[in-house]
Each structure stands twice: as C-alpha cells, then as structure tokens.
C-alpha cells in the first residue's frame, strides 16, 4: 500500500457507509427457489429473443435467449427445470419487460464444471468464451464485456483497471468476492490483460477494505508469473467507483465528455465482472449466478448471498426471515444510484448488485424547498456541472436551455441531491432536463 491514497480532484461526497451491516458476513449460497423469472433484457443494448418454448426442458447453463441483431449478450438458464411460461415480469428500470419463467426441477443436482488450461488459448477464443457466457458489466449498466474488450484498433489501450472501489454505501459484494476469492479475481485480471495485450493491470480498492487489499496483494505476489498486478488503495469518497473518476484517480487522465475510457487508453472492468470472466474462460461457466448484498436496517437478516439470476426478491426476503415493520423503501442497487421498487415480484438480474431494505430514518422524505444558492451541489458535483442552475431552469419551465450547463455529462451519481440542504430532487430535475434538452 503506498502512503498517500489516490483520488480524483473535483467534487465527491461522504455518505454514511453503513457497510458494517454485511462486510463481515461470508458469502452464503441461497437454495434454489421454486421458480425463477429470467428477464430477457438485462444488459445495455437490444433485448434478447427467447430460444425456448413453453414446456421445454432446460438444464442449468443452457442458453435461453440471444440477441439477434445489435449490441447485447446471451442469457442462460440459471436452473434446471421446465419452461413454465414466456411472459412479462416487473423490471427495476423499465417497469415491465418480457421474461422466461422456469419451474425448478428440485431433483436435479448442480452442474459440474472443471477448470481448464486457458493460457494456451488464442485471444479470439478467449473473447468467444466471454461472449458465449453472456458476460456483461455487472457492476453498472450491463455493457457487454466482449464488446468492451474489443476496442477499435486506432485506440491505443495501455492500462487495464479492475474496479474494486465499491463506493456505494451498504454494498459489500465486491468486498467479499475479493476477500474470499482473490485467486479468481487475479486470474480473471490476467485473462483480461492478455486479451488486451497488456502485461500489467491496476486494481483500485477504496481504503475502507484493508483486508481485501491485503488479500489481493498477497495473491498477486504469489501468482504473478510474468504479470504486474498493482493494488492501489483509493481514498474513501463517493463516487470513487465511477469509471471516469476511477480513471482519473489511478492514471490522472480525464475522459472527455461523450467519450469512452479507451479514448484515453484505459479499459475498466468491475471485480465481479472479472470473476465472471474467470468462470467463463477457465470453467466455461455462463453468467447465471452472482453475489448480491441484502442489507438495510429493516431486513431481519442482512447477508451477502450467492443467488441465481431470476430469483425473485420475495423469495430472498422469505429466505432471510422477512422484513421489519418499519420498512419504508426497497431499493435495487446502492442508495446513491439504485432504483426504488414498488413490488417484491422483481427478479434479480445480472446487474443487480444489492437489494436494500431501508427504514424511514435511513432515507430522507422531507419535502423540498426553494434553492438557497448555498453552492454545495457545485462543490459536490464530480463533473463540475451546475445542478442548482439546471434545476432552476427546469422549474421555470426552460429545461431546453440547460444544455449550456453540460447536462449531458451528468452520470446521475446523486452527489448534488445528497448534499442539498433544501432536499431538492436535483437528479430528477437533471433527468427531465436531459429528456427535454436534446442536443
């Protein structure tokens, strides 16, 4: 660990971490639910077309949906069983979406995977395995990983960063994965490096996870064989794990607005994705299960759970002993950027990183007032935007004039709304502005 902690320069906030609820809990496997609802749209890009019909038998890991045209990644069955229906389910973002409902065959045992030697495989084969496994960026928007790993030839990628910052409060999945499976993370990082033709990579971890940093450093040293894996400890500051901020923290480069990381020669992959890459390449196991954090002060038993994609929240809740009566908000994702949901019929997707059950004390439901121009949001915004101005323009019905403030560079980290003493829903205003102020 080097002396001074790396960080980005502009903005950022320190929300209460609340990670103590789950950070010491080992990853626990959840028993298979009776049915799973696998959404056909779990990634950035076009939704999948189902490959199965009603009453078909599927085995765990079988491909059940694929993208016919455009950007996307395949979707696999997460259980062995029979297709019950192809219907619609609740979706955390787009309210409802088509899904495949599978009745679990409780008799079937788990599918076995054997590790293989991957060092001899060609780059194309490695990418092919990742594509076949349907891997998407599971830390965020769900961008298909094989696409991200094939930057255009003119982009000179010289740095790979594994994102283990996990700056969102409450969430501890990446933390537990790094702590319990450092070997798999390191191995995954090596695979990614080879695909990108690099000999070294950075792993950025916020300094509030010293045990994870130590574990990874130890593993990296033991199994370096030719690779340089640098574990960088980062200052604890939200949004440290945002791609652009992480790149600045570690390399000092700034990705320009509307640009992508490879414009400054960097590729970023999440820790969870890295481990999924390991699974896909070494075990040839598709991405159909993932570790999620179930936390918040109104779930009876917080946990880090290994769940199958498609498991409904209600099954998780009943497995963990139900919720407390003071429950007042249910979130999918972290409290800063996650989505509030109105029903527990929601299935877990590849990009779900946690489900939070919050009490009224943890959230803030005070009504908002007029902007008092304190300027705190300006100091908090990591992108150097002016959320106060954007909000005032939107309130005055002039949302179309907000592009002058760079509203499209906002990635909705929520820092501004977090610090706002008038409790103004700034992110909401900015979304409205984005909708109205087309470039």
């Amino acid at each position, binding site marked *: 660990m080097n002396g001074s902690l790396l960080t980005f320069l*502009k903005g950022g*906030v320190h*929300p209460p971490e609340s990670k103590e609820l789950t950070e010491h809990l080992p990853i626990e496997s959840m028993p298979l639910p009776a049915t799973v609802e696998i959404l056909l749209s779990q990634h950035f890009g076009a939704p999948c077309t189902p490959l199965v019909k009603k009453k078909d038998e599927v085995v765990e890991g079988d491909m059940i949906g694929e993208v016919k045209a455009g950007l996307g990644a395949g979707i696999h069955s997460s259980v062995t069983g029979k297709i019950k229906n192809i219907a619609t389910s609740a979706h955390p973002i787009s309210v409802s979406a088509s899904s495949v409902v599978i009745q679990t065959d409780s008799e079937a045992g788990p599918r076995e995977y054997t590790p293989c030697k991957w060092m001899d495989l060609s780059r194309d084969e490695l990418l092919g395995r990742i594509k076949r496994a349907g891997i998407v960026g599971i830390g965020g928007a769900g961008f298909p990983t094989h696409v991200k790993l094939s930057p255009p030839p003119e982009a000179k990628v010289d740095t790979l960063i594994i994102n283990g910052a996990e700056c969102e409060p409450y969430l501890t999945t990446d933390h537990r994965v790094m702590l319990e499976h450092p070997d798999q993370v390191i191995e995954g990082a090596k695979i990614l490096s080879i695909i990108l033709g690099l000999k070294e990579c950075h792993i950025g971890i916020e300094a509030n996870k010293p045990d994870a940093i130590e574990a990874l450093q130890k593993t990296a040293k033991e199994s370096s064989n030719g690779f340089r894996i640098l574990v960088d400890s980062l200052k604890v500051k939200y949004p440290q794990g945002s791609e*652009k901020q992480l790149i600045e923290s570690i390399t000092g480069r*700034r*990705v*320009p*607005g*509307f*640009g992508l990381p490879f414009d400054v020669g960097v590729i970023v992959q999440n820790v969870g994705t890295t481990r999924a890459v390991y699974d896909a390449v070494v075990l040839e196991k598709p991405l159909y299960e993932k570790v999620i954090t179930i936390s918040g002060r109104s779930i009876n038993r917080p946990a880090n759970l290994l769940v199958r994609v498609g498991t409904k929240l*209600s099954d998780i*809740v009943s497995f963990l002993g139900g919720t407390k009566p003071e*429950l007042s*908000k*249910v979130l999918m*994702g972290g*409290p*800063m*950027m*996650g989505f*509030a*949901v*109105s*029903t*527990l019929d929601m299935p877990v997707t590849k990009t779900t990183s946690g489900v*939070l059950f*919050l009490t009224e004390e*943890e*959230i*803030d439901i005070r009504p908002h*007032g*007029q*902007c*008092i*121009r*304190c*300027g*705190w949001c*300006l100091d908090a*915004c*990591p*992108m*150097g*935007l*002016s959320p*106060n101005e954007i909000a005032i323009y939107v309130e005055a019905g002039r949302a179309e004039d907000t592009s002058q403030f*760079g509203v499209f*560079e906002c990635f*909705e980290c*929520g820092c501004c*709304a*977090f*610090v*706002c*003493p*008038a*409790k103004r*829903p700034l*992110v*909401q205003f900015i979304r409205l502005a984005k909708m109205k102020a087309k470039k």
Partner: protein
Amino acid sequence: MSESPLWTVSISPHVKSRESVEKIMWTVVACLLPPLILSVFIFGLQTLIITLISVISCVATEAISQKLLNRPITIRDGSAVITGLLMAYIIPPGVPYWIPILGAIMAIYVAKHLLGGIGFNIFNPALIGRAFLLASFPVAMTSAWLTPIRDAAVFKYMGTGIDAVSTATPLYVLKHYGMAAVLEKFGSLSTIYGDFFIGWRPGCIGETSALLLLIGGIYLLYKKYITWHIPISVIVSVGFFTWVFGGEKLFTGNPLLAVLSGGVILGAFFMATDYVTSPTQKTGKLIFGAGVGALTVLIRLKGGYPEGVCYAILLMNPLTPAFETWFKPKRFAPPKGAEK
C-alpha cells in the same frame, strides 16, 4: 407479500445528508445571539425590545407575504428570523419602536417575496431594510446611539424612566472630527483596541463586540456553513485599503482600528456570506469580498456616511449573477469542441 406495501418510490439518491436549510439557518441564529446578550447587558433592555420587534415583524411579514402570494409558508426555516436579527443589529438601538416594522415590510415583502422568495432576492433583505430606513428617517437612523455602560445597564436604567443616553459612534467621530477626537473620546489606542474587541463602545448591536461575532463566525466556519473566502477577503481588503488611503499620507492608515470599528466583522461573517446574494465559487467569493472591502473604505473615506459596510455589500450584491456566469466550476472534461 400480499398486502399492498406503502413504500416510498423515488428517484436516486435515496440517502441524503443530515444538513437542512432549517439547521443552517437556526445555527446562524444561534451564532448571532451572543452579541445581543452582551448589548442587553451594556445598552439596556431597549436593544432586546428593538431586536424582538424586528424579528417578530420580519417573521410576520414573511408569513403574510407567503399567504398573500399563495406560497407555502416557510417561517419555520428561520431565514426571516435571521433577516430580523441582522436588521436589528445594523440600526441604532435607540430608534422608535415602529421603525423596524416598516423596515421588515420593505425587507421581506419587497426585497424578497416580490422577487420570487428565498433564493431569488438579488439584494440582502436586511440591508435593503436598513437602507430604506436610513433614507426614510435620516435623523433617527444616524443619531439614536446608546452609551455603553460597563456595569450592566440593564439594572441601572431599570425603573429610572430614562431609556438611555445618546452618543456618537467612533466612526462618526472619526469622520467628522478626526483621529485626535477619537482618541480623546475613547481613550488611547490600546484601550480602544481592547474595548472595541470586547464590545465597550457605542454603536449598533452588531457593531459592539468583535470577539463574540468572531466566535459565532468561526463556529460557522467550523461547521462548514460558510467558507473562509468572503470573510477573510473582506477583512483583509478593508485593512489594506485603510492602511493605504486612510491616513494623512499614503500607507499610514490604521487597519486594525478600521477592522474593529463599525460593522466589518458582522458584515464579513454574517452578511456578505449570505448564500443567496454572494457568489458560490472561490474566485468569485474572493473578488466579491475584496470589492465589499474596497467599497467600504471608499464610502468611509470619501462618501457621505461614516460607515460603509452595508452599502458596500448592497452594491456588490447585484454583481452576483454576473459573477456566477464569469466564475463557473471547472468542468471535469467537457466534450471536445463544445466550448464556446
């Protein structure tokens, strides 16, 4: 989960900081109280009554204005209380009781709610209230000072029927009779520094004790409700310009006396830092503060009033919107070609 849950569904972020407008405003109120207590002690109950009238009429005007304009009534956020306190702190404590009521109407209704309520007032309402009163009652507003009594005026005047004895403020004496007269009236320089710092001097409530105001201001700094930029640049520029131009010859002015006398400390920490009417960016804040300081000295030395802090802040306030467009936060990395 069969019963329909009544959960909150809203857009991210779902956690928010503990700070709130009410908390900020009431903290400022608390930081403003110590000088009031001291002035009750040294000037008598009159100061308390004037302050109470000012605060109550500001709050009432706020409530009535909001009712008239069909807006949510937000008197609990404490902003009207601050306006009332500040206005009482910058008018002479010996004025007739109905004067602050008129000031409150001007400050809250015209200067704040007609312009769109909190956040849109271009000028600091308390200062507008004071400027309005000064224009309306030039005699009362420049002469109704009280003499400080060291041994607790509150007891001394009780039951005697005398309200208080009026006197002239140090800056008034300085402007009209020169430094020698100040020394004659208020004692040697070192006594003056001490007295002015602690608060034994005639003047507005907010002008009395530099020490207590500083304590309040520093607490606000500690709570990060204000930043150091405006107060420091106001104080430094008042000191600097007084040092350069304040004496008989260049570079012979007395910066310490200039900073300690009048409302410099109150203005620097509590009025120029008003969120609504001051810039949000550091560069803007520094220039804003320097402008306030320079104008203060200009009005003190060349203008028609002995004290210039209030007008200096009022004159800088309307520059704030322009400052906001000149000094914007540095964008992370704007898209290429988007800069105009």
